């Protein structure tokens, strides 16, 4: 593939980023001294009893039985990072995978570097540093053996947790060298030698999830399973309308219930500012606390919030679409003039609703406020660093006065990048000092008090010349904002493809007001933009008499890098083309087809979608069957993905991409809009916010990996976005109908 050749410039940009990242870690590791710090711990330990485990780097503990305990530093939400990051360390440490034990670390970014589960960043951010940590520890073990044997380190090799002196015909297990190694100088991480890819024996192998054997036994692992001696339980009564405050509480009836310990007013605090008032009922059982909510009387001050509703947004959006945009996001040439001179124009409106995250484990957090004003948290958080800051600010304590234990997490999808449940739990704990308290939301709390994926509306216009080439492009995007800027997750990139490659293009935006807090939902912004852009481009392709893969090839042009809005991130048109070609080949794509007959009244159709997000390039083809005129079933999905030179754990890579694709089906066909009335969300449970069930799953999701010569990137998100337009385009092929609004519904 030609893209291997022209990696130079892109590679330079990428490695510049990696370098920045590396210097950050180097600062926190070598300079700020995670390695030296831990080496000192190890020395102190070395004076203790022999046979005790020895720490080498912040991540590695060599045990007396020559097993190795590796710290997994990032939050595990089901994306497989608790297995993947230790694989990187174990590879370079050169141990056998069956010697490895894995432990979740606490939250401590000074010790471990950035700890976050978001943006599919774990792979690009840790591909180098984790391997360097393993390689540094290995080098220290080799140095210890060299010293003991009086030979040069370069004459020694390692294998399966042993240092080997081939010439001398001897070897020593790491456990016998660890105490000595802990006193060796920590090598320069930037230059410590790393294995070439063809020497990998762990990276690239299918590895089972580290917690799988525990999960199938029901072992307590999740935040909700936290159990501490003397623990209390808390349930919340929240202001239904976001931003409302408590006017008056009458809790006399609640306080009379046996087992109820306290009633604590709380506020989720800083993000967004002042959101949102609630009252916590603390009892000796969550069931009791939850039931006691019926007896609590709260009057809310929420008059200012009542103006916000789904119907109101729809009307404002319709009005705004007809007016000029408030802001320009991108402008090249004169789109209006070019459209006036175009041979053919295509125009269409697209939209999508607010969505909740609906993690299956409801939001929860356990907290203990001790007598000396310290706080301990057991938190299912994707973002412990942000949580620490917000809790510290809300409670007026020092960030260091807090210990954060990270639990396994029953689904993240971006919901747990926010820290409201930590802030609330901490306040409740402060209300019952000295006793641990677990705060748990019920499903209705969870659906009504989310940070929602924002709704959006687009009016597109495209112009084609006599040869069918795309010469003009316009999008007026109606989204949510404040002070002329989009609010969280409501933005659109100024380099949204194809705008930057069309001679005359204009992307504009208008911002509506909402009181709903918004947030990142798996593949944030991309999950919506892929649908509207690839859906509309399929219409443009149709007008040009070609299919979408062909329109994409022509519009992408020669393999080259296009700058993106994000500094240091480029969009490589050659990588895009390669996945488009690969998926067309795998699915035997033969161009735009009309409906094919299925059984009975059923019709079948095929659709295509491409999207670049979170550094991953994915092209997907979907087959659908439409029965009875309205019921849509996805039969099969083919995907081709380029996430760089190496798929680290192929087993988990398959899980992630298949799961993401099915998640895309849910957004396209199953999930219903989150509806707001008088400032409050109305969704009650999975009855009116239905999730996808097993009967909606296609019989196969086939994956083709396109390897390229770029550093590996993440996989939690980029496989999701293209599915949604591919389904819409397949429905068009099957029925002749264009569905331009999510969820896709034939009536």
């Amino acid at each position, binding site marked *: 593939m030609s893209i291997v050749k022209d990696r130079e410039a892109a590679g330079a940009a990428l490695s510049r980023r990696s370098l920045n990242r590396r210097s950050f870690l180097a600062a926190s590791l070598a300079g700020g001294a995670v390695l030296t710090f831990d080496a000192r711990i190890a020395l102190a330990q070395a004076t203790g009893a022999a046979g005790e485990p020895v720490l080498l780097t912040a991540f590695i503990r060599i045990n007396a039985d020559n097993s190795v305990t590796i710290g997994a530093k990032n939050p*595990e*939400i*089901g*994306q*497989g990072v608790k297995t993947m990051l230790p694989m990187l360390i174990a590879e370079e440490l050169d141990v056998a995978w069956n010697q490895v034990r894995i432990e979740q670390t606490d939250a401590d970014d000074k010790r471990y570097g950035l700890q976050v589960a978001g943006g599919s960043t774990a792979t690009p951010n840790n591909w180098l540093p984790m391997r360097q940590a393993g390689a540094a520890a290995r080098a220290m073990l080799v140095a210890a053996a060299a010293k003991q044997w009086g030979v040069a380190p370069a004459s020694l090799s390692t294998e399966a947790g042993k240092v080997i002196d081939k010439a001398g015909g001897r070897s020593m297990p790491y456990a016998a060298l660890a105490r000595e190694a802990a006193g060796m100088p920590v090598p320069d991480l930037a230059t410590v030698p790393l294995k070439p890819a063809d020497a990998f024996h762990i990276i690239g192998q299918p590895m*089972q*999830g580290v*917690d*799988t*054997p525990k*999960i*199938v*036994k*029901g*072992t*307590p*692992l*999740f935040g*909700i*399973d936290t*159990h501490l001696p003397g623990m209390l*339980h808390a349930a919340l009564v929240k202001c239904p309308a976001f931003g409302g405050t408590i006017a008056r509480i009458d809790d006399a009836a609640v306080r009379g219930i046996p087992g109820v310990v306290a009633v604590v007013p709380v506020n989720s605090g800083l993000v967004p500012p002042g959101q949102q008032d609630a009252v916590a009922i603390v009892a000796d*059982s*969550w*069931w009791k606390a939850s039931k006691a909510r019926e007896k609590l009387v709260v009057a809310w001050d929420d008059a200012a919030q009542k103006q916000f509703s789904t119907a109101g947004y729809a009307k404002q959006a319709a009005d705004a679409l007809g007016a000029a945009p408030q802001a320009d996001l991108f402008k090249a040439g004169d789109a209006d003039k070019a459209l006036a001179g175009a041979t053919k124009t295509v125009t269409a409106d697209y939209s999508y609703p607010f969505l909740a995250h*609906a*993690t*299956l*484990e*409801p939001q929860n957090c356990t907290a203990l406020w001790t007598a000396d004003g310290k706080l301990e948290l057991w938190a299912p958080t994707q973002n412990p660093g942000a949580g620490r800051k917000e809790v510290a600010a809300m409670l007026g304590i020092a960030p260091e006065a807090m210990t954060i234990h990270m639990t*396994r*997490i*029953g*689904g*993240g*999808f971006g919901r747990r990048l926010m820290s409201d449940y930590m802030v609330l739990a901490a306040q409740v704990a402060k209300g019952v000092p000295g006793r641990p308290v677990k705060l*748990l939301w*019920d*499903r209705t709390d969870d659906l009504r008090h989310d940070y929602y994926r924002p709704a959006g509306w687009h009016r597109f216009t495209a112009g084609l010349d006599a040869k069918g080439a795309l010469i003009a492009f316009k999008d007026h995007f109606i989204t949510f904002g404040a002070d002329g800027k989009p609010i969280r997750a409501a933005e659109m990139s100024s380099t949204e493809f194809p705008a930057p490659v069309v001679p005359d293009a204009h992307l504009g935006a208008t911002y509506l007001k909402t009181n709903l807090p918004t947030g990142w939902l798996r593949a944030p912004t991309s999950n919506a933009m892929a649908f509207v852009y690839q859906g509309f481009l399929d219409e443009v392709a149709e007008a040009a008499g070609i299919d979408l893969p062909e329109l994409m090839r022509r519009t992408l042009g020669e393999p080259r890098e296009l700058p993106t809005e994000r500094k240091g991130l480029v969009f490589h048109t050659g990588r895009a083309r390669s996945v488009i070609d690969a998926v067309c080949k795998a699915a035997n794509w033969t161009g735009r087809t009309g409906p094919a007959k299925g059984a009975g009244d059923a019709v079948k159709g095929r659709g295509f979608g491409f999207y670049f997000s979170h550094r991953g390039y994915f092209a997907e083809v979907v087959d659908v069957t439409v029965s009875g005129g309205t019921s849509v079933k996805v039969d099969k999905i083919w995907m081709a993905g380029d996430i760089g030179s190496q798929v680290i754990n192929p*087993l988990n890579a398959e*899980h*992630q991409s*298949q*799961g993401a694709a*099915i*998640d895309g089906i*849910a957004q396209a066909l199953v999930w219903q809009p989150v509806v707001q009335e008088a400032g409050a969300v109305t969704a009650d*449970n*999975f*009855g009116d916010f239905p*999730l*996808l*069930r*097993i*009967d909606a*799953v296609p*019989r*196969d*999701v086939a994956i083709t990996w396109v390897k390229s010569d770029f550093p590996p990137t993440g996989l939690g998100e980029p496989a999701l976005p293209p599915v949604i337009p591919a389904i819409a385009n397949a429905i068009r092929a099957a029925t002749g109908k264009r569905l331009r609004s999510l969820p896709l519904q034939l009536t």
Partner: protein
Amino acid sequence: MAISLTVNRKKRVVDADADKPLLWVLREDLNLPGTKFGCGAGLCGACTVLLDGNAVRSCQTPIADAAGKQITTIEDVASLPVGKKVVDAWVDLDVPQCGYCQAGQIMSATALLTQTPRPTAEDIEGGMSGNICRCATYLRIQKAIRKAAGVAA
């Protein structure tokens, strides 16, 4: 009130309100947190347990209704021959992602295979449609059930 029941082959007595759901008795009173809370409304299946061999939603089962009955939860499902096959297949295929729904999935799969030892794909869809997996591990759930049943994938 005091209620006697048999949980995972052991006789237990709990003192709880008659309307307290079995789910919360398991989690809070019997220290068996493997059974999960997802919706509290019978809609997600995360709380599925076996009550006298039948899959029930423990969030919808008042403890009074479980009095005198045999309850099996995820913590002991592998003591049943069918449960053991299901659990082994789950491990072999590495079914879980976040893992939160999986206790309920395994309990439902065990009930399904006990009643229908050689299920078709449609039987599996029917038997498992009460269990939501937000991570969408459904393709592997299908495969694992067939594997546990010894029928071709």
